[in-house]
């Protein structure tokens, strides 16, 4: 089978490429022009330079592919306007689907997000029947919601087979660009106050997300979305887990909405002046106190199996510790968790 993977150098794409190769797929990766991508270094894949906003490059990339995995997206709470986010998400997705239809691709798997099913003010898990909650949604969440609707609308119009994978908070290896999800771990460790906050999330391993994409490509029902997640945890539990794995104290402080909002507003103001990314954004603060808990029963019914959140986080930290994302002075004070016994991430990296 031949696959085209857009956004192959992102955290989902890079893990998906490896999973495809492990299952003997022939992989073509669409990457944007620029220097070689570390996440794809040394892999036996075909690389095509292009952009989801460039239909010509997409036509070339999609030619001959059996399945298109459209992972490309901008996942950012800062540094990109909502218009920029939506341009990549909506226009880009329409371009990919149009190119896939023109190339005769049999199926497109869209990497969407769990946030399109909204969040809850209380500790309840949402499934694929839940509706998007516009109140307090971040620009990123809005862009993903619009992307999903545009994708299914365009695919229906063009008669293309489309399924969507909706990962929850995805952490793991090969994330050299540091996605916002791995950044949650990094920011927490770099924070001298080890601050936590109210609410909860669902954390899943990038490797499981890659397997889930393949599963959905093979068994998913056309026109359906599938939540891919793992354990539902509170932020305090997640932060405590990170501290425990790294042998450090924490969480030490619990941020209130007010203090977090003031911090974010100040951080954004400073960011405007310095040009550096803000440490915290108001978008992120709006997510505080919300419960991003999800039920992935639909995917599990297809055979989706995932490891625990603890193992996912452990695996992610083990990899992150060997990157520049965690400041050396912070890293020097942390214990590097031993890699989970089942994982081969480290072994692959050493190889």
């Amino acid at each position, binding site marked *: 089978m031949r696959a085209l993977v857009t956004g192959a150098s992102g955290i989902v794409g890079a893990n998906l490429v490896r999973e495809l190769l492990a299952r003997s797929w022939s992989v073509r990766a669409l990457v944007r022009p620029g220097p070689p991508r570390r996440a794809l270094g040394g892999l036996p894949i075909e690389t095509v330079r292009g952009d989801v906003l460039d239909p010509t490059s997409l036509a070339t990339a999609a030619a001959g592919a059996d399945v298109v995995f459209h992972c490309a997206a901008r996942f950012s709470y800062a540094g990109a306007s909502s218009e920029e986010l939506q341009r990549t998400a909506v*226009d880009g997705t329409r371009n990919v689907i149009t190119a896939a239809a023109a190339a005769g691709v049999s199926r497109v798997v869209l990497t969407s997000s769990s946030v399109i099913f909204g969040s809850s003010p209380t500790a309840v898990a949402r499934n694929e029947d839940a509706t998007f909650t516009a109140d307090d949604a971040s620009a990123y969440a809005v862009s993903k919601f619009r992307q999903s*609707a545009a994708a299914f609308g365009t695919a229906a119009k063009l008669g293309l087979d489309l399924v969507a994978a909706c990962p929850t908070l995805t952490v793991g290896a090969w994330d050299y660009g540091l996605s916002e999800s791995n950044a949650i771990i990094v920011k927490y460790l770099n924070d*001298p106050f080890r601050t936590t906050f109210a609410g909860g999330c669902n954390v899943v391993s990038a490797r499981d997300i890659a397997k889930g994409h393949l599963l959905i490509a093979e068994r998913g029902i056309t026109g359906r979305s599938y939540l891919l997640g793992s354990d539902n945890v509170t932020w305090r539990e997640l932060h405590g887990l990170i501290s425990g794995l790294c042998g450090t104290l924490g969480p030490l402080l619990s941020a209130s909405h007010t203090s977090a909002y003031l911090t974010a507003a100040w951080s954004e*103001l400073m960011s405007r002046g310095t040009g550096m990314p803000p440490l915290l954004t108001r978008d992120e603060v709006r997510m505080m*106190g919300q419960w991003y808990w999800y039920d992935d029963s639909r995917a599990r019914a297809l055979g989706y199996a995932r490891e625990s959140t603890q193992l996912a986080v452990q695996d992610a930290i083990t990899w992150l510790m060997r990157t520049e994302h965690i*400041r050396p002075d912070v890293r*020097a004070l942390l214990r590097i968790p031993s890699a989970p016994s089942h994982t081969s991430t480290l072994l692959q990296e050493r190889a």
Partner: protein
Amino acid sequence: MTGSRRATKSADTTSPLVVAVAEQSGAPHTILLDDALEAAGLWTLLSSRRASLRRRKDSLTIAIKPDLDLFAAGAPTGTTPTLVEHLIASLRAHGYASVTLCDGRNKPDRWLHNRDAFCVPDLVGYRFESPEGTPYDLAWMDDDPVPVPLDAFDDRPTLHVNGAWVRADVRISFAKAKTDDAWGYALSVANLIGLVATTGDATHWSAPDATLHLLRRCPPHFALIDAGVASHGPAGSRVAHAIQADTVIASPDALLADWIGALKMRADPHVSPLNAQALQSIGLPQTWVQHGSSAPWSCWTNPSPILIEAVRNRARWPELDRLAVAVLQPVDREAFPYRDLIVEQVATALRDQLQRVTDDRTRDMVHSLLASALGLLATSREAFVGNITKGDVLQSLAPITLDLDRLDQREVDQTTVIVDAQARLLDGVAPDARGFRFRTVGGHIHFGAARLVPIPFDEFVARVDVSAAIRYMNDYLGGSWRVLARDANGRPIRQVERNVYLPQPNWTGVFGADVIDVEKLEVVTYTPDLHRLHWRTVASPNGSAESDDGIVTFRRAGSGDVEVSIVARQRFRLPNTLAAAHIERWPGVHGELVADAYSRFFDGTLANCRAVHEGRSYRIGRAPTLDGVLENGSDLRTLLTGAIALVSRLLGWSSPAQSHPGVMQPLAIDDLGFAHFAGAHGGSLVTASSRASSGLSAPHELTPLTFFAELGRAVGRDLAALGVAPMGAH
């Protein structure tokens, strides 16, 4: 008067050195200079040099370094030009024709015009010919920079100084007697800074290290201090505050001349860190003869210790320091016009305000308050960097200042005996819950801890070199070391090391604590089951430590793994504000603070050892930038432009996003409610109404209205979480 033995410097001459103080109220200063030259033996010295170098009088090259830190003609902040030219004339009269003036600092700078090679002397009164009409040369740094050789073990970038000075057969420093708000006083040793290139590699050198290096490698053969009209007060080197001292001091030894000069100023010679470091490392001559009185000049005033501390604190933020110097430096604006209108306006406005204060005491107080505010700003920034963002703190290349040629091996070997005895003071002390043992003896904290690391001993010691253990310690910023002896396997067994660390505990930086800067003697031992390092502090160049001794041991445990243990005896100088609080009077609080500090120290050190074992980086901080401590000039325009840009952005007058033509407007909204964009071209600005029409929330601009609206919602959520509603509660 014959001086007593002050230091361990060995005598290298048969006759004692002379320091001459020519002082007479109302006497012409040229006469005083002649007297001082004669009494201090310049002519004898020149003859001696000529004989040893086998030179004729007219081919003996003589370099004179006057103090050219002048910003107005006739100001007493630099050496009086007529005295310098009188010296040249005297040399010529004695047959010494090859005389050159040297300087390095007054090169074109970023804030004033006419600070280039020949303008400064011309505008402050030098005539480029001696009184008898013979022209003399002026050697400028930019024409002829020469590297000053480094010791083999010195890793720092080379220091470049004026080539004419280095090559001269005889070097004469002709300094001004003046107070200085950073050094306390500025005399011959401070005058040497003016020989150093002010950019590039020199920026890696601190002023005390640079002057010490010059004193060792190319010292003046003769030092003169012009105190005919001196400059005193809180900042005599910067702000002209003339006092008729009618004195000239001369000596073949610059440190001795400064020693007497400081006493005449009623100042402790050690108050200047430039001189203090040189006195500790080189010392005064064993004996000397003094002609004239060292009685202080009457009515002389020195900068207050508070002001000195504040200005030194300000220097911890080099950009702020340069800005302050540029703004506070009085300048003859006709001779040295400002390069920048903004700089001129700010400097003029500030000085006009300060000049309204006519009472000297009040003006000094205003200066001190201003300096204290800037010093506090700099230390706060440094404390923030040290506590929060350690990646931004500057690493150090501080050299060893101990005179290794005079270091007795037995003194190094005694380290084990002395430190082992200190370690025994912990015998019988029960460990606390974390396994740490503490005891306070005479204000020194004795600490001991051990931890088993699950790594085989042999594997651990193969990668973690115990002789470098000091460098693995928590918050290490850098330094240098020299191995004095190695064993048959090439491993260091005796060495000397200088280490610089962040203030300990880090939070003391908030109160102005300086970095820990210590020089240590070390002995390393290796057995099949034990690698051990003994260290003993013998000097602290910045006075930050009274003691810092200890033992690091890597021992093979019963399991075959390695046990890492540290025993230490330390006492670091607290900043005045903390020292005044006498925290030790509250044993509970003091004990917790000490335990927390050592817990962080031990855990951090152990983590660094593990990082070394795993091949990871453990160093904190960043290498020094090219904006160094010696650089002259002002960043005011840059800072002002940055501040204006920042304010503009904060107020929304412009922003990075608005630097583009605008954000894209959807061309149409389809039946699903999705906006369609024109792609890479076209589009116009999004309006509030179009955003609202999307029906979904979008990121809000941070305006006062949205800020208060969102803040209100955040407060509401917190109130709800307190029990009124289940919002966010778990």
